[in-house]
């Protein structure tokens, strides 16, 4: 490149500044004598994303307990309305216990637990966690009231109303958590946002059913058994569809032993419940335990698959590059 110096000793404005410097312009290089290296796909193999600062016990536990609580309340309402008091009582108690636990987990994971109530400064439809907080604050008191009236036997009408209210809010509590984790840049979570709510709903139902089987007498546990079966089926169906649709970012999910165990336990528990569980209290309890364990495994599985997908830059970069290539190709066509 030929010399293009424009020396102006008068420093007149309009002169090019150093930010216009073009390093390497005046040489003769640029003809590679070696084959170019393969395209680097990352910066020293470091993740693009910062991952989550969350502890798995708190947040995966929160996903499980929230699901259990929500589904249990719905089950409780259904049981109460269909005259299965024992099942209803068990489910209500379970729900209030679970929601308490989930609340603890949520607060415990905050960097500044003392500021938990800041969640109520705003209502942000763009933030599943904000929406969830409001759902919780709508659901929590009703679930509590339902359980309290149930156990004390006082204010039956109010109890009935609270039970129904919690039962209606329950599903929202059980599924919003899916939106919560999917509304992130974590590849294995975000890309699964279509099926994740169903997977969570299924897992929640299965766990609630499991708990029902565990706690309620055989005579009243029929809905629990059916709920468990439906839940397990929904969970598996959602998982299969999700992994098939997602492509590369499904890898961490596919690789997750916890997820496999979760589904196996759910299915096993559900079938066992529908089989021996109809007659044998022991079998029913075993099935229930399996279903609960299955749900726990599923939630931890999903959580860890997500963090794993965030750690490996491939899951962030590859899909984006393919997307770019695709859109370029389309642009070139038109």
């Amino acid at each position, binding site marked *: *490149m030929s010399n293009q110096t424009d020396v102006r000793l008068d420093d007149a404005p309009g002169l090019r500044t*150093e*930010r216009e*410097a073009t390093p*390497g312009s005046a*040489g003769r*290089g*640029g003809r*590679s004598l070696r084959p170019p*290296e393969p395209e*680097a796909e*990352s910066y*020293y193999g*470091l993740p*693009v994303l*910062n991952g989550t*600062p969350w502890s798995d016990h708190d947040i995966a536990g929160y996903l499980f307990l929230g699901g259990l609580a929500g589904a249990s309340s*719905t089950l409780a309402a*259904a049981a109460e309305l*269909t005259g299965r008091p024992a099942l209803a009582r068990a489910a209500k108690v379970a729900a209030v216990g679970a929601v308490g636990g989930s609340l603890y987990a949520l607060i415990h*994971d*905050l*960097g*500044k*637990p003392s*500021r938990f109530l*800041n*969640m109520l*400064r*705003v209502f*942000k439809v*763009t*933030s*599943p*966690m904000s929406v969830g907080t409001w759902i919780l604050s709508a659901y929590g008191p009703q679930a509590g009231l339902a359980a309290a009236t149930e156990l004390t036997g006082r204010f039956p009408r109010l109890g009935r109303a609270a039970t129904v209210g919690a*039962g209606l809010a329950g599903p*929202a509590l059980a*599924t919003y958590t*899916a939106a919560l984790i*999917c*509304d*992130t*840049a*974590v590849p294995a979570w*975000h890309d699964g*946002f279509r*099926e994740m*709510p*169903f997977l969570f*709903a299924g897992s929640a139902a299965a766990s609630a059913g499991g708990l029902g089987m565990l706690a309620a007498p055989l005579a009243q546990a*029929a*809905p629990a058994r*059916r*709920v468990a079966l*439906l839940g397990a089926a929904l969970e598996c169906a959602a998982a299969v569809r999700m992994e098939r649709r997602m492509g590369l970012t499904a890898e961490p999910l596919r690789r997750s032993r916890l997820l496999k165990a979760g589904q196996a336990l759910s299915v096993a528990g559900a079938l066992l419940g529908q089989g021996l569980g109809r007659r044998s209290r022991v079998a029913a309890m075993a099935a229930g335990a399996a279903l609960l364990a299955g749900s726990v495994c599923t939630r931890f599985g999903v959580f860890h698959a997500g963090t794993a997908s*965030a750690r490996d830059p491939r899951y962030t*970069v590859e899909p*984006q*590059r393919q*997307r770019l290539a695709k859109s370029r190709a389309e642009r070139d066509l038109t």
Partner: protein
Amino acid sequence: MAFDLDRAPLDAGYDDPPKRMGFFTDTSICIGCKACEVACKEWNAVPEDGLLFTGMSYDNSVGLGADTWRHVAFVEQRKPLGHQETGARDMDFRWLMASDVCKHCTHAACLDVCPTGSLFRTEYGTVVVQEDVCNGCGYCVPACPFGVIGRRETSGTAAKCTMCYDRLEVGQEPACAKTCPTDSIQFGELDELRERADRRLEQVRAAGASSARLYGHDPADGVGGTGAFFLLLDEPQVYGLPPDPVVTTADLPSMWRHAGAAALVLLAGMAVAAWRRGR
């Protein structure tokens, strides 16, 4: 769930706000001195981020996070830089340096998902953490598609570049741009910077750097364009940047629909399961 992401940041609710301000980081003239990292830490009292020898060329800061708000990447490649001649080896070589920073996205996931309103959009169109409000839920961290924001161990709250909000309010440019010895980091009104960047790109390409490209300047991209954008000399991922980031909340409406549907399915399933007769 009707909300219109594309109105951000116009729906910020400020009365006659100033022009949107931004960074244009021209990596082709970065000398990798890291003055931006230090000036940023000095101004914002960001704690030291660990004394770790990484062996990643001259980069010992590793990446952006709660305690590193400017990060200079160093990339050594056996590729040519324009017409540069690099001596005895029978191969091309170039040493790329780039100062990374929070992108201050037009559609900022961290801001969208923040449940307390700690993260908010300022009148300058920048995205800032309000430390006194943050309860440390950490949701913003996985939400950021660039891996910028982090949760600080010591305080438990989220932290990232503020584009020196306090300096802007008194009409001063951010500390990193102020100190940059070669003006690789340029601060100004975003529109003006975008025009400047287009001219600059032509210039750099004409000078032989065919791999040069702008990153984050396109309002049509997945995050609606960034308030801090870059002139890069190679693919974004080479610098640790996502090639085509999309704000996760773009899919949120659909997420809500699916979540709602799943909730209804659950409700219905329960009902069916309960009302069906038999043991």
